[in-house]
């Protein structure tokens, strides 16, 4: 039997506000533990929350960018459970009246050649918890000798985005998550870094026989700390579930933990341990009534979103859909591209060098485009030198590594290594003649109709010029001399 997976995502995104969600403590990252705190975010007796308007604005922005309806009336609830990283032992969150709901995101599956739509169930706002450090044991709370708690993150605005179960294969989930990241980046409301934990993914996944409409029993996967682990974790979990179903076993509704090193998921907790959060409207906060005019104002000031940018790249720069999708996958890459083009380099050639050569170096080094030594100026210069015939594409490839490594401009590397292309016809003609002289056999073969012999002769010219000869010129001169 053929099976298909049903995948839905829950994404938590920490917002980039100056102050926390319900108090005026700063949200600075990486400070000494328990220094970015005040009586409110420490849950001192008698303190009260006050809503951060900026966080509401950023969530509304996100909701709009995800094509959601914005709730003119919404509310904060208390989600009650005990945990030492929560100062109040309840989290102020949203329940049945989230700020935004009913949206969608279109995801281009470029390699696969189709576009899929992922529904957005809701976008809501809550406060982040503190951080626990367990000393002793295996770094987990069970068995720890003691635990320390840092409340610097407690109360930082946290946006939760929940999707419909609209994805069917792991790569769709990955592509969606990347698209979502690009959208949020373009809004500038979060730095959406998986590494820093400002973007966190939880995945729900079930399997069912193809053609069946009913959902299978789902599991939730936690600890997916990169797009790669999202794809790998899902692939593993889908395989595990299909094998279990085929073996006649029942899938248990549970939360599973992804282990990046073993490449497996394992049971974290089963449904019996599910909390009863006893949600109820937070009586310390009055319901929010948003002014439609304010939402109108936010709508009119939304920046260009990845979809629009992608369309513009295709129209303005004449790029194929494939290029435009890859370049606009992150804001940094799209910005990089436009800057390189603005320096006068050919639009299509800049794209080629970015999505082939630069991308493979970044991949190999596991770097983001804004983390490497290569800048738009490097790529623009490189492309312009090729287009002007100053260097060949081959030379450009040869020096890319040094450029990536050292950040030296291509013109400098070319000059240092004496790699400027020979385009002087008489200079090349002399070498061509010498090569013809030294290879009578090949000359004969060519004249006898063996086309590949010409390639050998070209190669000899290139060898003698250390690859600097203009290949088009070499071809032209060889053909002339041999005819």
């Amino acid at each position, binding site marked *: 039997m053929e099976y298909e997976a049903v995948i839905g995502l829950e994404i938590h995104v920490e917002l980039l506000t100056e102050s926390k969600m319900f108090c005026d403590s700063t949200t600075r990252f990486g400070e000494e533990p328990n220094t970015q705190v005040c*009586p409110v975010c*420490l*849950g*001192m*007796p*008698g*303190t*009260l*929350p*006050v*809503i951060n308007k900026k966080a509401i604005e950023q969530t509304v922005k996100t909701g709009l960018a995800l094509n959601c309806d914005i709730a003119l009336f919404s509310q904060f609830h*208390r989600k*009650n459970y*005990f945990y*030492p990283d929560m*100062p*109040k*032992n*309840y989290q102020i969150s949203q329940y049945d009246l989230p700020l935004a709901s009913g949206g969608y995101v279109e995801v281009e599956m470029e390699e696969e050649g189709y576009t899929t739509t992922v529904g957005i169930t809701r976008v809501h706002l809550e406060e982040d918890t503190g951080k626990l450090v367990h000393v002793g044991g295996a770094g987990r*709370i*069970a068995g720890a000798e003691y*635990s320390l*708690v840092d409340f610097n993150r407690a109360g930082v605005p946290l946006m939760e985005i929940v999707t419909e179960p609209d994805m069917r294969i792991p790569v769709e989930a990955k592509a969606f998550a990347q698209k979502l990241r690009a959208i949020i980046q373009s809004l500038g409301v979060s730095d959406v870094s998986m590494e820093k934990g400002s973007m966190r993914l939880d995945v729900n996944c079930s399997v069912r026989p193809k053609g069946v409409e009913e959902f299978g029993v789902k599991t939730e996967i936690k600890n997916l700390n990169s797009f790669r682990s999202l794809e790998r974790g899902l692939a593993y979990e889908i395989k595990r579930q299909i094998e279990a179903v085929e073996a006649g076993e029942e899938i248990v509704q549970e939360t599973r933990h992804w282990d990046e090193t073993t490449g497996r998921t394992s049971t974290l907790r089963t449904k019996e341990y599910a909390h*009863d959060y*006893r*949600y*109820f409207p937070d*009586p*310390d*906060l*009055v319901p929010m009534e948003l002014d439609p005019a304010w939402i109108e104002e936010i709508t009119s000031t939304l920046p260009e979103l990845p979809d629009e940018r992608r369309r513009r790249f295709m129209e303005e720069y004449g790029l194929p859909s494939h290029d435009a999708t890859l370049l606009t996958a992150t804001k940094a890459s799209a910005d990089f591209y436009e800057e390189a083009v603005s320096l006068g380099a050919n639009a299509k050639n800049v794209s080629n060098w970015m999505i082939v050569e630069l991308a493979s170096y970044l991949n190999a080094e596991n770097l983001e485009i804004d983390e490497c030594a290569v800048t738009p100026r490097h790529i623009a210069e490189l492309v312009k030198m090729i287009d002007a015939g100053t260097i060949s594409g081959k030379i450009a490839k040869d020096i890319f590594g040094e450029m990536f490594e050292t950040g030296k401009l291509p013109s400098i590397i070319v000059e240092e290594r004496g790699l400027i292309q020979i385009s002087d016809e008489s200079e090349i003609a002399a070498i061509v003649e010498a090569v013809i002289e030294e290879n009578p056999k090949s000359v004969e073969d060519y004249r006898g109709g063996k086309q590949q012999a010409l390639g050998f002769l070209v190669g000899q010219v290139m060898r003698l010029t250390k690859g600097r000869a203009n290949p088009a010129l070499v071809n032209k001169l060889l053909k002339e001399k041999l005819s």
Partner: protein
Amino acid sequence: MTLYNQTIAELHKKLVAREVSSEEITRDVLERVKDVEQELKAYLTLTEEAALAAARTVDAKIAAGEKIGPLAGIPVAVKDVMSTKGVRTTCASKILENYVPVYTATAVKKLLGDGAVMIGKTNMDEFAMGSSTENSGFNPTMNPWDIERVPGGSSGGSAAAVAAGEAIYALGSDTGGSIRQPAALCGVVGMKPTYGLVSRYGLVAFASSLDQIGPFTKDVTDCAIVLKALVGHDPADSTSLEYEAEEYVEALQRDVKGMRFGVPKEFMEEGVEPGVKQRFEEAIELFAKLGVEVDETTLPHVDYALSAYYIIAPAEASSNLARFDGVRYGLRVEGEDMIDTYMKTRAAGFGDEVKRRIMLGTYALSAGYYEAYYGQAQKVRTLVAQDFEEAFKKFDGIISPTSPTVAFKIGEKVADPLAMYLSDIFTIPVNLGGFPGISVPCGLSDGLPVGLQIIGPTFGEGIILNAAYAFEQALGFKERPSL
């Protein structure tokens, strides 16, 4: 000259006229505390030195010819449920026995900013849960009129302190009658303002949607003076209202002739003690003499108010009190692991009534019960509020006995929580609607004070103060406890 038994208004005049210093007043009050405290136990913490220092600061201002406000230099007692920086704030609970806050509640800050002299923090029912102050985690407080009887509660310490002259006035908090009922039982004036009129920031929450801070004073004039000092929008409290408060002292002088008051027939069907009923009927006659028309009215849903209150208040409390877990402040009883520490700490730290209400509230919010309990109670709450609104269309205010009985014997109702809950039957509905209510002495029954409650519409403080003042002047109640 005894000073402790005088009013704010009288002492202010003497201060301004330099007939007496704040230090003299403060010493006189502290002397009185020494004389009676052993019998009354109204205070949990005395701040003698800080009080004298504050008094001297005011005296220096007066000496320098500076103008002082009406509360400057006047000794005040603060219910130990309000956060006071550097002064331990216990909420009369073992769990906070050694908790010293790092910040001061807005209401207290306002008074201190006006030069108030804080004498100490007063006893109460633990976390304001109770009607007799017997639920204090430390000791009961005795009624100055009869030390074998309770002072009422939960603000029993504040009421007793004012009645006995251990403070010129006091602050309390009222969630279901916790100011008005002890004021009635101790023969002083006590007022619960409109919900949102006085900031709750720093008031350790019992039931956030019902709690309100208010004054205990010896007479209505003082009540108007203190109220004026307390009110005002606080950006730190999202439920505090933007409202330009009127001049309450001026409102006292308005003519009450032609005012109309309603007496809910449902209230008179309750088990009101004959002595209390008699005083109340005389009060109605007195109002008639003043030209105030008193008629029967109806609050059809008021019979359900108590039930709704005992769902809503414990539900909010169960969440509000979750923060007392031994992790950050207060009592910690080390257990085997985290959960065990939580349980041991809370088992040792909370008293029976608090535990009872946490259990009630947790149950009411549980999955599957929420709608039947909390949801239903909120609907009742709306209906009760509408009943009042309806009545206020015909009447300027509603009057009733404050409590169905006079002060009862210590221990009399401890074993029967339901009987204790009935003590607040006339005050609880007012909190559900968020309306202002005042209790003013209306004579004695068997030598014990009876209180008259006057309830006004939202922001009707001026109306009820006006009526209470006229009533107080006409009645001429001058009795003081013999202690």
